[in-house]
C-alpha cells in the first residue's frame, strides 16, 4: 500500500485514514488500494446465465458493437455506461470491479439498438438489467435517501394498507437518523391537517380486510429478502480477500 499524492490517483483507489473518527488523510499520506485484480471467479456469470433474461451473456465475444451504438454511451455521453464492459466483467468474473457500477448499470433506457445489432445474438439490454439485479440483490449499491424513503413507505403501507403520513414521516426520520424540531413539526402538521392533506391518528383510514392482504404481501417480501440474503452470502469478497 504505497503513499502518494492524492491528486495523482483515481478517486476510487484512495482510502480514507480515520483516527478517532477524524479524517486525517488529507492531500498527502493517502492510502491506496492496489490496481491489481486478483479475484476471478464464475459466480456472477453463473448467476446471470441462470436467469431467463441473462442466459445469452455467455455468447459475448467483446466486439463492442453494443457500446458503439449505445445511446447512453455515445449520444448521452455517459461514457461510464459501457454495456460491453459490464458484460465482460460479469462474464469473466471480475466481481469487485463490476460492483463499482452498481448504480450506473441501471442507466440503460432500453432502446434495444444493441440487441438489434449484436452479431452473436446477445440480448444485451436484458443481460445488463440482469447484471443490475445481481448487483442490487448482493447489496453492491449503497442505500440512498430515496431507498430509505421507499422502505419507510413500504412498511407503512404493509401495516395498514393505506398511508398514514405522520407515521411515514416518523419512520423516515428514524431511518435517516435525523430529527425535525417539534415546533416546526407542529407548524407543518397543523397546516396540513387544516388543508385536509394529512391523515393520521384517529382520523386515519385503514383498508378493510387488510390483515389477509398484508400477510400475503409480507410473505412475498420475506421470500425476496431470503433470496437477497442467500445471494449476499454467495457474493465474492472484495479483491479475493487480499489487501
Amino acid at each position, binding site marked *: 500500500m504505497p503513499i502518494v499524492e492524492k491528486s495523482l490517483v483515481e478517486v476510487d483507489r484512495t482510502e480514507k485514514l480515520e483516527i478517532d473518527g477524524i479524517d486525517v488523510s488529507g492531500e498527502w499520506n493517502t492510502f491506496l488500494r492496489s490496481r*491489481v*485484480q486478483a*479475484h476471478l471467479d464464475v459466480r456472477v456469470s453463473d448467476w446471470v446465465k441462470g436467469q431467463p433474461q441473462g442466459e445469452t451473456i*455467455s455468447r459475448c*465475444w*467483446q466486439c463492442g458493437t453494443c457500446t458503439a451504438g449505445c445511446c447512453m454511451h455515445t449520444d448521452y455521453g455517459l461514457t461510464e455506461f459501457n454495456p460491453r464492459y459490464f458484460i465482460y466483467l460479469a462474464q*469473466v468474473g471480475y466481481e469487485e470491479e463490476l460492483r463499482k457500477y452498481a448504480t450506473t448499470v441501471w442507466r440503460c433506457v432500453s432502446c434495444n439498438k444493441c440487441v438489434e445489432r449484436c452479431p452473436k445474438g446477445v440480448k444485451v439490454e436484458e443481460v445488463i438489467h440482469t447484471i443490475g439485479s445481481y448487483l442490487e440483490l448482493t447489496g453492491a449499491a449503497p442505500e440512498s435517501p430515496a431507498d430509505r424513503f421507499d422502505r419507510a413507505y413500504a412498511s407503512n403501507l404493509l401495516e395498514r394498507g393505506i398511508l398514514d403520513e405522520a407515521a411515514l414521516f416518523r419512520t423516515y426520520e428514524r431511518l435517516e437518523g435525523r430529527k425535525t424540531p417539534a415546533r416546526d413539526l407542529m407548524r407543518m402538521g397543523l397546516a396540513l391537517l387544516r388543508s385536509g392533506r394529512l391523515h393520521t391518528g384517529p382520523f386515519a383510514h385503514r383498508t378493510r380486510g387488510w390483515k389477509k392482504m398484508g400477510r400475503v404481501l409480507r410473505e412475498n417480501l420475506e421470500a425476496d429478502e431470503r433470496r437477497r440474503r442467500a445471494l449476499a452470502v454467495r457474493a465474492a469478497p472484495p479483491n479475493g480477500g487480499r489487501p
Partner: protein
Amino acid sequence: MNPILVLGGGPAGLSAAAELAALGAEALLVEREAYLGGNPKRWHYSLLAPDLRPAEEILGPLLGRVEGSPKVERRLSTTLTKSERLEKGFRVTLKTADTVETREVSAVVLATGFDHFDSRRKFEYGYGRYPDVIDFKELEGMIHDDKVVRPSDGRAPKRIAWILCVGSRDIQVGNPWCCRLGCVVSIKQAVEIRQKHPEIDAWVYYMDIRTYGLWEDLYWKSMQEYGVKFIRGRIGQVTLAEGGAQLLATGEDTILSRPTEVPFDMIVLASGMEPGTGTKEAAGLFGLPVGPEGFLTPRLSDMNPVDSGSPGVYFAGAATGPKAIPDAVTEGMGAALRAFQYARE
C-alpha cells in the same frame, strides 16, 4: 519401378504410403521412432478438432491401410543418413541402431512433420520448474486417460488457465508464425474437460482467437454451452502463489486495462509448432531451401504445395508449416500422386 520413399510415419506419411499402395506402387515407409502415427500417437492425442472424434478413429484406418498392405515396406527406428541423386530417383542410406543399408528409390515424399515447441524456452512461464504448469500436449494424454490431475499432488484441479501462443507469434524465441492449432486445440481441451468435469472452471488467456473457417463453431460452443471464459491479454509470468499450493498468473487484462494476478490450480501452455528434427535433416540431405522459419518451402506454395521444385522430391504435411491433420492427410494424397507420376514417367 523402384519403390517410392516416404520419410515420416505421421498422418501425412501414412496417407502418402497408403495412397501409393492403392495406386499399385511400392512404398518404403521410413520412421525414426519405433511406432507409426507421429505426434498424435506420441502424445496420445485425445479427441481431434473439429468433430471431436477420438484420434484413434482417424489414425486407425490409416494405420490399417498401411500395415495391412504388402506394398508398403515399413522401416521403424530408422533414419536416413545419406542421399545421392541418380539419373532417375535417389540412392539413400538407411540406418538403424545396428544396421546400415543402401537402397534405390524412384521418388521421395518428405513427410517429416513438426516438433512441439519446447515450453521450457519460455522460462517466465515456469514450465519444467513448477510441476503444475503443463504443456497442452501432455494434457492431451491426461484427457485421453481421463486423469486430469495436478502433477504436484495428484489432486483434481478446480481452476485451470490456458495460455495461448506459447512459442508462437513471439520473436523472443524466434518464432514469429502462428501455429494455427493452439487456439482450437486449447478450446477443445477446455470443452472436453468441462464436459466430463463441469466443476472445473476454465479460463483461456488469448491475444487473438484464430479458430479459422468452420472451427469457429467450436469456439462459440465452448462459451455458450460449456462456459469457457476468455480473457484478452498475454500472461507475462507465472509464479507460485503464497503458500505454494497454487500458481499465480500475472498479466494485463487488456480489456480491463489493469494488471491481474490470479491464482490457478493448473496452467496449460499451448506450445507452438516448430520444424521437426527430420524436416531440418531432410532439407540438408536433399539440398532443399528452407524459409526463414525453418520449414521446407514448396516451389509454388499456392499452385502446387506438394512440389519441392527439385525433381522427384515432394512434400506432405507439417514439413512445410503448421498443419492440421485433415490438411496433412490431403497433402499426403497429393504428394503420393505426384511422386507416382514422376516415378512412372
